[in-house]
């Protein structure tokens, strides 16, 4: 496999008081990948994402994007470099319309005309057209998740981090989200945190398992499912459900 590493962490660590939420994670992501990040609640997945996007400062360790150290950058600089994130808790502009939400995302990078075209394109792709003038806060949960997904992609990032993008979605909505992610993967490297094994089987080729702030295993989905240690800490519980 080619070693075009787009994102890398070296011995990344985060302590909250005495708790080591992330305890030395060395992680490599190759360009074009669609990686799934799994692990039980509290394993540190969200904390890891937040450090990658400068929402949290690492206690120790390094983050490299395309070979350059980005550990000390601000969140907006990370955004400009082309790392987009959907946080676990929906992070949208509830008081603004769907159109305005997408416009704000598209305008961060593109010139006015290009931004308008981008908004139209994203709305068509996500079938949000009829909701364009609705306030995002009034929408159903699944729709808000898509608006946020749309915002992240409208920015045309090189890397997309999705923290539980299908939480609270119906089976149908989840399937559709899987399609959208596969679609987005054509132009961006993606990491998805998920609990839904069905969903992961649908999209993942390569899976990283987090456990107690460290990488427990990293392999293809098939091998991960056969891995006894992983089964013990994680799959055994939710995989059978």
């Amino acid at each position, binding site marked *: 496999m080619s070693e075009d590493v787009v994102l890398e962490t070296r011995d990344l660590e985060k302590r909250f008081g005495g708790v080591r939420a992330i305890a030395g994670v060395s992680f490599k992501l190759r360009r074009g990948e669609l990686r799934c990040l799994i692990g039980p609640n509290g394993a540190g997945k969200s904390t890891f994402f937040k450090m990658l996007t400068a*929402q949290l400062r690492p206690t120790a360790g390094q983050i490299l994007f395309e070979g350059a150290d980005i550990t000390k950058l601000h*969140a907006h600089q990370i*955004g400009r470099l082309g790392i987009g994130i959907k946080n676990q808790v929906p992070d949208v502009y*509830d008081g603004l319309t769907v159109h*305005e939400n997408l416009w*704000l995302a598209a*305008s961060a990078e593109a010139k*006015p005309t290009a931004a308008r075209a981008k908004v139209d394109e994203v709305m068509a792709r996500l079938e949000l057209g009829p909701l364009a003038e609705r306030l995002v806060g009034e929408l159903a949960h699944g729709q808000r998740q898509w608006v946020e997904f749309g915002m992240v992609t409208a*920015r045309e990032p090189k890397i997309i981090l999705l923290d539980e993008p299908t939480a609270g979605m119906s089976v149908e909505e989840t399937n559709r989200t899987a399609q959208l992610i596969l679609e987005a993967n054509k132009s961006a490297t993606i990491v998805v945190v998920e609990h839904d094994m069905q969903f992961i089987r649908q999209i993942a080729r390569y899976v990283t398992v987090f456990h107690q702030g460290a990488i427990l295993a990293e392999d293809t989905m098939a091998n991960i499912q056969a891995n006894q240690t992983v089964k013990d800490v994680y799959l055994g519980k939710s995989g059978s459900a």
Partner: protein
Amino acid sequence: MALRVLGLTAPSKKPQPWWWGVVALLALFVFTIPLYLDVAELYSISNFLVLAILALSMSFLWGYGGMLSFGQTAFFGLGGYTYAVLALNTGETTSALLIAVLLPMIFAAILGYFMIYGRISDIYFSVITLVVTLILEKGIRATSGDQYVIGSVRLNGQNGIPTTPSLQLPWDAKAQLDIADVFYVAAGLLFVTYIGLRLLLLTRFGRILVSIKENERRSELLGYDTRRYKWLAFVIAGGIAGLAGAMWGIWGNFVGPNMFNLNQAAQVVIWVIVGGKSTLIGPIGGTVAVQYLTDWLGTQGVGQVSLILGIILMVMVLLFQQGLLPSAGIIAAFAKDRLGLTRRGRAS
């Protein structure tokens, strides 16, 4: 939501055509006031209009930038003193007025840089702005000695500068504006400020500013340096407050340390809360209503004006949390819903 019923569009939306009509009608109404009111009434209304400019400065910053500056009076007072000192020193008022806008902006730029780029929390932002205005008040009060002179102008400490000149025509220093003229200037500046802010909110800058108020983290993650936008908004608001301060000096031929004081600072917050910070026009109405009431209570010899104003504020906050205008919208929406006039009447 509620505002839509009144036809007030979201800040980022272009105003509907009739909005311009309403503004034009309002302007027509205000500009014809001098035809049927006497000079004393004009004089007190001019005061309301000038203070409404100050209210706009806070309303813009708080309602659209999400920053509650408790000390917009710092820039208000600074603008007033700048105008008085410069106009008295140079005998020329147009440039004095201009600099009375610029200097508060520079001060806001420096103060804002430390607060906003230092990423202090919202609470500290409010507290520091308040403390700054109180420090300025103390500082000005301490200038009663003969040694406190700028150029040829004594600052006079407690007593302020009661010789603050009225505005002259830019091309004729002999032509001092009278009370009716000052009324026109105040009304004109209020309209220009209001329309200017309304249009500013339609620009890319304005829309991003509103997004930061909605969810700052999201704006940052999208790649906007939110500090820059907040800082610019703070500087603009400082300039507007400075303009109001200079106009207040022109209106009353007086500037004094009370322009900075706690009472004045709290008044601004009250105007904006009463009018509702989700629109710009609301706080203008809030200012006029509260100031009219203050003046009226003063003439009634109640003696407890502050107490009554305090009670009104509490009632407003408890009953109409959004302020008067948005609350009217909510009531209208409710009535419309009840009468079955809205098809899309579903709650989220």
